[in-house]
């Protein structure tokens, strides 16, 4: 039961985001990069499957700032192999990123075949498509997204996956393997790894480097980004200002006027 997990670094949106001078992207020097949240869940699901069924977990990512630390953390958590695709242009759209990763998977010895490819269901900077379905298409594999539970039969020929549906419903699917699954959340919260273990991994483990292959034609059809901006203030909330007890009193007044107290 071999699993490949595709990881992506994204800006931490808890921090203030700064736009680049040309207004066509974020100022990447200002942004603190973290692992895309649902990718962390995809990694956790892969590690849970490894604990149950054995096999290997490989993590694969396009080079990005602060990626090495995320890859060493994945190794410290239990991944067997970490591969970094280097030399691709920075800030690629998802469509192009999928094309580069798809080519890398086809070319690099030992990355395929795998039984399962997991990645986060979406990333906060997706604009021109989602990685999991795009990779599935390029590799000719079945796809299911918004998955929150995966189990695999003994022969690793099919998976039972549960996905989220509207109104709190879920749905169960059977998927032929190999397949690409977009993970929304793992069965458990992603495990914590102490900094000491990550440091130890940095000393004892290596990240394999793989030069980026050309993306090919799939990357040519892209919408053109005209501009980015912070949302307008229109329809903005009326702010209650003052000390904590003043704003509390003002809010009580509002609720009371509306019969909500």
């Amino acid at each position: 039961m071999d699993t490949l997990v595709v990881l992506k670094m994204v800006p931490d949106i808890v921090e203030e985001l700064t736009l680049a001078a040309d207004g066509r992207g974020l100022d990447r020097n200002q942004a603190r990069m973290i692992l895309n949240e649902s990718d962390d869940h995809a990694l956790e699901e892969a590690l849970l499957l490894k604990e149950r069924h054995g096999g290997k977990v490989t993590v694969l990512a396009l080079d990005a700032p602060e990626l090495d630390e995320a890859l060493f953390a994945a190794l410290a958590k239990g991944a067997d192999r970490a591969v970094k695709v280097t030399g691709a242009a920075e800030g690629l759209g998802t469509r192009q990123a999928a094309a580069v990763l798809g080519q890398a998977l086809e070319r690099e010895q030992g990355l395929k075949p795998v039984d399962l490819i997991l990645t986060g269901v979406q990333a906060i900077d997706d604009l021109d498509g989602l990685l999991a379905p795009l990779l599935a298409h390029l590799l000719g594999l079945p796809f299911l997204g918004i998955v929150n539970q995966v189990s695999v039969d003994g022969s690793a020929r099919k998976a039972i996956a549960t996905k989220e549906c509207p109104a709190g419903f879920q749905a169960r699917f059977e998927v032929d393997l190999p397949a690409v699954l977009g993970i929304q959340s793992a069965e458990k919260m992603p495990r914590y790894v102490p900094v000491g273990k990550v440091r130890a991994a940095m000393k004892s483990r290596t990240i394999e480097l793989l030069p980026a292959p050309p993306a090919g034609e799939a990357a040519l059809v892209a919408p053109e980004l005209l501009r980015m901006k912070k949302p307008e203030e229109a329809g903005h909330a009326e702010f209650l200002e003052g000390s904590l007890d003043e704003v509390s009193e003002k809010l009580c007044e509002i609720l009371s006027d509306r019969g909500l107290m």
Partner: protein
Amino acid sequence: MGSDIWVVAERWRGQISEVTHEALALGRELADASHAKLTAVLLGSGGGERAELLGDADLVLCLDHPSLDEFVPAVYAEALSPLVADREPRCVLIPLTNLSLGLESLLAARIGAPAVTSCKDLRIVDGGLQARCVLYGGKIEATLQVPGPTAILGLLPGVRPAAAGTPTSEVEVEVIPVSLPEALKVRFEENLEPEVGDVDITRQDVLVAVGRGLMDKENLARAEGLAELLSGAVCGSRPTIDQGWLPLSRQVGKSGLTVKPKLYLALGISGAPEHMEGVRGAGLIVAVNTDRQAPIFQVAHYGIVADVLDLMPELAAAIEGRKGAASHG
């Protein structure tokens, strides 16, 4: 280049979803602006009988096949791609939900067309199609020029009011037979009902909603205390459920429930689109967050910039004070 506007209808548990009518309302604006036809595409068996529910379109294409009764993006993409490639509409609008997510990418990849996800609005500008998208959890908006001949566009819920769609028997219907492989690689097995919670948050007049800003499960008691003072219940955004602070039955948003309380008091919730989707029907939204730029303040009626952990005790004291005064007066 084709000029027609298509909308992929979403059918779930026998009903046409509200987002379908929202997408049709936006599609109508685009079709009128470019003198084009608005087409709804309905997948599943017996679609012809339901086509009248999509009377806000000029034409309903029914892709008739029992394997399309459940909305499975991988199967829908297989059924739709030959038809889209053949008829070349200007764009295919897909309301993005937990059912449809991924269809936009699969369909675009299959026919070699561009895709745009998370569209908040679409407009025809100088004869070209422009999309306004939301990314980075609602903190940034991007405007994109969408090339043709055909583009696949994923829409966020709420692009237009759904009321614009009206059933009529006048709509033109075309039933299209579909051939799909007998052995599908992704097979729907069954729907699983939501777990029943102790409180039905969809029926509460007052909801105190907590998010990451609550910091720790230990602080939940304070939010519960506030909810009790306001005769309401506590609910939460996705991270609070993932962290195990609250059960799934208390989750509001795309993956959880849609609520319509008279008061939604959002404590430490940033207001990502996935969460706000579940709150659109709330009467009054009051948000408390340390970040004045948090997207929730675009939607909230009133905002307080504060740490919820500092505000909660003050607010509880203020409410108690008023209640005390009222009972003594």
